[in-house]
């Protein structure tokens, strides 16, 4: 199929330069590559810039209310497991107002593909800090800087028992398409954290890795079964070091030819290593870096690509399966048979 088959007739109204444009195009490409016809695809969103996405996709779409996309998508997928269901959401929609639905769709492992657009700012309400804004971040609603710790989405997702977590970057189209396709192929709740730039209210938030010059040094695209090697010259590798006293494991950068360089296994059920990978390069997003900062950020690369993809039973399948099982041994299967079974008498 062609990407154009997934383009709706609506004029795309993201701000010029917004990272959402790129994800929109990547979605159309990925959907074409996946090849499921538009009428079997439902795209559900909440509220926010990214939640406008359904309007630009020529599938079934439902742009709902703030934070509730996850619950509504759960209803669509559970009632109709044969459909392919996407959820479009942002860092506010998913992690603040919709936080409860978000952790529960992950816990239940509903077979959804969730794009969580993370620009670390509230764009549609014109520039307030979000749950992923670094501590100390100055915004219209935090003129003296925030005093609260942010979420690291990957950590939250793995903590909720996530079976799939990928991270991509608006300016890296091939990785984005790969992540979206992988999310669809994974059966279960697949979360793709899309790092997007808000050109108006938080320009350059991902500059650390978005910048062409720096990207190869500051990020690594993980691929299942491949060695964790990065750098402009592919000269660096990632390894795990365990502190001999505390036994706390941490990621370290070693030479690419070091025998300790890890091979990525996204399918490992134990999430320990996936968590370490998800946390790499995140401390600069925990606290605003300035001269007062007590801890300098690490030099670990931000992990992109599919970090975790493990098999587990999905909620939607389990619900339907249980109904089918009960029905095979049920005495009554319709209303008249049901009332027939009642203790009754005739007047």
């Amino acid at each position, binding site marked *: 199929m062609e990407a154009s088959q997934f383009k*709706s007739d*609506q004029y795309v109204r993201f701000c010029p330069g917004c990272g959402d444009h790129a994800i929109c195009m990547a979605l159309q490409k990925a959907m074409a590559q996946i090849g499921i*016809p*538009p*009428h*079997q*695809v*439902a795209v*559900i969103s909440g509220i926010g810039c990214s939640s406008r996405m*359904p*309007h630009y996709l*020529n*599938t*079934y*779409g*439902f*742009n*709902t*209310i703030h934070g*509730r996309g996850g*619950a*509504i*998508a*759960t*209803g*669509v*997928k*559970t*009632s*109709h497991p*044969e*459909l392919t269901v996407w959820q479009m959401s942002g860092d506010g929609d998913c992690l603040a107002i919709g936080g*409860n*639905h978000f952790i*529960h769709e992950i816990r239940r492992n509903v077979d959804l593909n969730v794009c969580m657009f993370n620009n670390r700012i509230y764009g549609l309400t014109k520039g307030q800090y979000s749950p992923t804004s670094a501590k100390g971040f100055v915004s219209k609603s935090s003129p003296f800087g925030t005093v609260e710790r942010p979420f690291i989405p990957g950590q939250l997702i793995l903590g909720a028992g996530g079976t799939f977590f990928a991270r991509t970057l608006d300016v890296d189209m091939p990785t984005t398409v790969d992540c979206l396709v992988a999310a669809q192929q994974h059966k279960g709740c697949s979360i793709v954290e899309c790092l997007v730039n808000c050109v108006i209210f938080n320009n350059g938030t991902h500059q650390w890795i978005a910048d062409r010059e720096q990207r190869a040094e500051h990020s690594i695209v993980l691929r299942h079964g491949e060695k964790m090697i990065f750098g402009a010259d592919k000269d660096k590798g990632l390894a795990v070091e365990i502190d001999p006293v505390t036994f706390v494991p941490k990621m370290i950068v070693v030479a690419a030819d070091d025998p300790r360089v890890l091979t990525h296994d996204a399918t490992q059920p134990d999430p320990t290593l996936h968590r370490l990978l998800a946390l790499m390069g995140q401390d600069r997003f925990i606290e605003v870096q300035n001269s007062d900062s007590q801890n300098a950020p690490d030099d670990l690369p931000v992990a992109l690509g599919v970090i975790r993809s493990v098999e587990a039973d999905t909620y939607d399948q389990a*619900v*339907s399966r*249980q*109904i089918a099982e*009960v*029905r095979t041994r*049920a*005495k*009554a*299967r*319709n*209303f*008249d048979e*049901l*009332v027939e079974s*009642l*203790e*009754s*008498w*005739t*007047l």
Partner: protein
Amino acid sequence: MKNIVVRFCGDSGDGMQLTGSLFSSLSAILGHEISTLPDFPAEIRAPQGTLGGVSGFQVELGSEVYTPGDKADVIVAMNAAALKVCTLGSHFNHPQAHFDEQFALYHRHAVVIVDTDSLTAKDLEKAQYHTDNPFVELGIPESVQIVPVALTTLTKEALKDSGMDNKSMLKSRNMFALGLVCWLFDEPMDKAIRLLEEKFVKKPALIAPNTKVLVDGYNYGQNLALNITQIHLDSRPNEAHGRYTSIAGNKATAWGLIAAAEKAGKHLFLGSYPITPATDILHELAARKDMNVMAVQAEDEIAGVCTAIGAAFAGDLACTTTSGPGLSLKSEAIGLAVMAELPLVIVDVQRGGPSTGLPTKTEQTDLLQAMYGRNGECPAVVLAASSSANCFDFAYEACRIALENMTPVILLTDTYLANGTALWRIPKLADLPEIHPQSVPEELRGKYNPALRDERGVRYWAFPGMEGYEHRNIGLERDAQRGTISTNPENHEIMVRARQQKIAQIADRIPELKVIHPTAERSDSVSGLTSNSETVLVGWGSTEGHLHAAANELGCDLAQFNYICPLPKNTHEVLSRYRRIIVCELNTGQFAAYLRSQVPDVKIEQYNEIQGQPFAVERIVNFVKSK
């Protein structure tokens, strides 16, 4: 005797609800009409033997049974605390309170069966008595017939060879009481034993000991010829011929949803979060996987309605069930369903509010929340069931209206209907009204958008999986022609009016308001009243039984509303026939206020009670006569 009211009361661990419901079912099987009122504390287990832990179950049986009765003719009090609560009613906490017929839960000539083994000094202390003679202390008049029975001793005696431990034996005390009451009403034991066996089908070890105690209780009454005469009810129900069962309102609601889904050819989806007193609907539907029901216990109230909205978007008959606090949480999402014009059934089993309020008590205080509790101009259909049995009909009707008109429908029931049981004539699916979901016609394939309406103004329903109808639905305002996002000022007004008109036209497809006239033999007993054609009691929802009984006594008419929004088309015409219109409701006047806005030229009086209890017929009658 024609009708009789029995109240079982004891500690919340004494099995009073089970005893009461077994007795009610037995009475119904024997051909009596029944109406029941379970009345229990919010605590699962308050401290044993205390006043706060008293749990009651009241049933009226006979013919022309409209309510569970104002006051009991027969009381079974399992302990000292129950005796006190029944005798003093709502005044049980007042020091020095005495029997006062106004507050007592039984009549001056009632029979009170009391467990004398549960009146020890320790029991009396727990129930806050100050003397060692509870009967004197409570001032129970001599006209009340006290029947002391050593229930605990007799139960232990019955089970002495069972090998059961003391604690397990004591759990069967309620069956001894039930056996005794069955003897009192001359009800045959074989049917009672069969009911008991059904009740304990999953715990077969309990059948034999409980049956033994039940029969011993019966024989105790028979052999010892207790100093009371047996009560023979000669009633025959007025109900139409057919197969009957007894059903609680919540179960009837669940089954109405099941029947509607099958009739409409739709898959039934429930998204719900546990909340008293609505949870039994979730329980029932979760157990009905044999009926292909998909019941999701969501992470919160909002997710309950939102998963349902997702299922509606995907083409299912979608429902959510809740009580008042949950309806508050669902408000925004119901607004989405109004805006997206999706069929959705919301069942609100009302309880005492506001906030957490009185979770196990009944009230009609969510009416205006259901009508108006959303942002924007946000009309939805509001219905109210008026008996435990017709919860089935109105759950079914809510589904029919939702599917045929692409709108959320809020069905109001309440604690009284939900937990109470009534005789239900078992329908056949074929006899139920047809349901025609507003499916999109084939000729719109490739040309569909979500704003396209039929001549009634109802938009067409297309959902994922249907090729050629792909569209984007929204909670944002949409263009009246193209269905896409629109912020155009004139368009907004067109759309606001289109949504209102869609609800208004439903009045063409619902029954007209029917006035209930008083039964002939009672109407002439009225004296000192305006002639009966000049006065009408007006109610809505669950008060129908009490208002019907009151109207009979008063010889006036009754107009009971089940359709709240839209109102029946003849509402104004009916009400304007009367000189006195008295709107009676269990709130401070919500329906009265609504009626005044809808039929402004009629003069409306109000009668209101807000005590977490159903009406007492006597109080309504006294109010009407006093004015």
